[in-house]
């Protein structure tokens, strides 16, 4: 059992609709895996299952040898899985620094008494949280640093909000990062930047990464392995080349492509 993450026959029903259907796959430590598939394929639902936001209907999820089924989201985060959201969900009224400091919550433990009396241990912990948060923010260069630390997250530009969300996930000191469409809504240049960033996250910070992405350039650039999903099931798995040429995948995407063309025509 060398796998960092493993799920077997994972299913999720919403009433009659099966969003995730007997989905099995695994991630090894240090890998970057991309999860692709057309809209509504169940990718985000899969993230929600892994992070405990939805209870799974059946199947199992193992992480570092622990069964995640039935755990609360915060416990899963504590075990070392952190995520970002497709539609960026920050704490808009909290400052940028505070947003990232929240990520440290599960790695610290001072409570009410500590906060009120502020003994030395509390101060040291706060200092540690702050330093760590600043370290995460520094990963993105000066974009989120300096005078911005004390500005509300809502004052950031779209791309920077995405970066902040990643920084927040990083600061939970997770082993496995789940990134939900990190490049969505970014311009081509920022997209390339994000791709580099994902690589750097693994190479410099040692994160294992599972990323949902629609932008095939990103997928191609970053992934060690690609998993394609459609109708809640895995339809292909392998290197980018293998998956991209897989006929099931092409089939799944063709309809979507047609749609896109239509969209463009409109």
């Amino acid at each position, binding site marked *: 059992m060398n796998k960092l993450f493993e799920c077997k026959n994972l299913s999720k029903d919403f009433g009659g609709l099966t969003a995730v259907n007997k989905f099995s796959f695994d991630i090894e430590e240090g890998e970057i895996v991309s999860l692709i598939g057309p809209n509504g394929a169940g990718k985000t639902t899969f993230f929600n299952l892994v992070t405990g936001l939805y209870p799974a209907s059946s199947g199992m999820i193992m992480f570092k040898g622990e069964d995640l089924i039935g755990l609360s989201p*915060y416990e*899963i985060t504590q075990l070392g899985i952190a995520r970002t959201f497709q539609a960026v969900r920050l704490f808009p009224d*909290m400052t940028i620094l505070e947003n990232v400091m929240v990520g440290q*919550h599960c790695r610290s433990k001072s409570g009410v008494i500590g906060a009120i009396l502020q003994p030395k241990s509390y101060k040291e912990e706060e200092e540690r949280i702050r330093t760590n948060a600043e370290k995460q923010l520094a990963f993105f260069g*000066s974009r989120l640093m300096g005078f911005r630390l004390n500005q509300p997250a*809502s004052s950031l530009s779209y791309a920077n909000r995405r970066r902040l969300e990643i920084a927040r996930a990083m600061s939970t000191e997770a082993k496995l990062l789940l990134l939900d469409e990190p490049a969505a809504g970014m311009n081509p240049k920022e997209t*390339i930047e994000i791709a580099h960033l994902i690589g750097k996250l693994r190479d410099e910070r040692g994160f294992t990464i599972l990323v949902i992405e629609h932008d095939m350039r990103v997928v191609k650039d970053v992934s060690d392995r690609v998993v394609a999903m459609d109708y809640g099931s895995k339809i292909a798995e392998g290197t980018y080349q293998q998956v991209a040429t897989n006929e099931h995948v092409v089939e799944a995407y063709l309809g979507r492509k047609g749609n896109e063309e239509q969209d463009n025509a409109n």
Partner: protein
Amino acid sequence: MTDSNTINTIIERKHATKTVLIGIYSGLVTLFVCLIGMVETFGARDIIGGIISMGHTMLIIIAVGSGAVAVKTLREDMSTPGATINKPAFLVEIFVGVTTGLIVGATLSIFVFATQLVDMRSVLINVSPGLLEMLTLQQPASQVMMTITVLGSLLGGIGAAIFNINPRIRLPLVLGLTSVVSLGMLRDMLKIVLSREGWPSVLLNFLVKNQGLSIAGATTIFATTVALVIIWPHLPKIYDKTVRIIVTYVPKVLQFAVSIIFTIALTMRVFWFIGISDKDLPILPSCQAADSSPNVDLAKCISILSNDVSTTSDLLGTNLATLVSTIITVSEILVGSLILLCFIFAIWNIRQNANLTDTKSTLEDPNNALLIIAKRNISAFFSVALLVSLPILLGVFPSEVLLNVGLYMLMGFGLNIVVGMAGLLDLGYVAFFAVGAYSTAILTSPRASIELGMSFWAALPIVVLVTGATGLLVGAPVLRMRGDYLAIVTLGFGEIARFLFLSDWFKPWLGGAQGIILIPPVSIGNVQLIGPHKLYYLIITGCLIALFISARLRGSRVGRAWMAMSEDEKVAETMGINTVYYKLLAFGLGAMIASISGAVFAAKLGTIFPHSFNVLVSITALSLLIVGGIGSLPGIIVGALVLVGLPELLREFTEYRLLIYGAILIFMMLSRPEGLIPRVRQTRELDDQELSQDAWLHDKNEANNGSSVTVT
């Protein structure tokens, strides 16, 4: 008629419609305040004795206001980029003001006319002869209609004219008038404070004339305010200089010695004040109005005041006592005014410092740093000094007001943890206040079912723990509910608590509708804290502790967790926050703080009834939180002072208290949900800056290396 022609061409139809609409709305507001009885009730209170009452002032303010609002709207409309004329001509503005004023006046006169035709009183109870007398200025109604209308237009015109005065003159003028009106409104308070032994009686006679201010008094107040407003901008500089001189030239030892002596003197004075024998000091009559929380009949209090300070003389020989008490009071007045003045500067400084802390350069200069620290110390010192000396300076009745403000303020701090920090809208907060009061009563009263007869201090920890547990009990079922359901359900819990306190089921333990009596007062050593001026110290200690706890929690890991939870619960949970725990924690802590308020409330009254604990208490606590800005700690203090203190000072207000709270809630939510004193946060107008910095970074990258991909 060239004038009217220009007017026709300049004012477009939509502007005219808007003006008329504003007039009609103002007219309706006028009618509203008349029909609801405000005008008549406030008519009994003279601002300037025998000349103008508060009721009249109210009508005048509406008429003038309508003119001002109409002009403001017009200017805003016209200054839109598309409009050809940016600022309407002076005459046009006056015309607009006169129109709205005219409509207000006409509405009122039609109303007066209608009252002559139909007897409305059987339905609208406030259309009384008294009201008509006020509106018609004791003249026959048929003749006065014209007068009212003309008066209205005049006032509207004045409103418009005020807008055209140079702001340099307008500000002192408006503030001067405001201070005359406010002091006139507070003349009871003025009387009470000024008639205390030691204050020169000349001052009282000069300022106050039977029902309201004297003309001379009003003029003096106006002049003083105007003078203050004019020199105000220069004062901070003087203060700055004084502090700088003290810091640089007065030796440290001396500074230290002076503050120590001052502290000792103040402490001794307070101890002495608390320690005065209570034999002669009557307990204040506290009556429970059917639908309002702690209230005191002002008239009774005034009658009692004569007994207040004289108690000291029983202890000492008469001659000596007179001398001592005169010296003490005179020095207190001097010191008190000094403290007040310093306090104002101190507050001003805190605001200034808040702006300064970001810019590092000010701190790098050691002299500046020293200055800032000195100022901070002075602020802290004088804030405490003011808080401590308030009841000594003001006497019993104002202390009663302050005590009630304190009770609500404490509740406000507790509720702020639940609503402001954790984002759980709890509308049943009164339940915790009630549980605190009831458990105190049960534990301490010899008449309670269990007859424990504990002392307040022994009971307090149990009370806090019991109420905290109640908080968890209430919190547990609502854990998974969404915000608005949670609010209604907690409201329901508050009501259930009252039903239970009232019910026969629990009567053997809780006393049913009769409540619990003979709750002993709080005592410290041999001194019993009877009377609001002594309990004040208890509640103010509670408030300070709650303030301290709130301030510490806010910036801590716990506070961050609450804040994250209140902003996005799901995300907070995926960031590793156990939301169940933090919700319960908030409910528990909030309940504990409310219980202390409840305990003091029980000890203050000596008797508690279920009727004191109704939903209006929760609404008051919520309103004061919202007025100050949810989550803002200074906001709670200001909110409690304004929403609880003012109605207690103005007897007439109590009737309309909840009407005004309701209006305030609507107004705040519609216009500025963040409150009047929002949490200190940087403004949001940073997007531009953000974008420009992005662009700058971008350019720099491009320039640095051809490969634009580097992530800096």
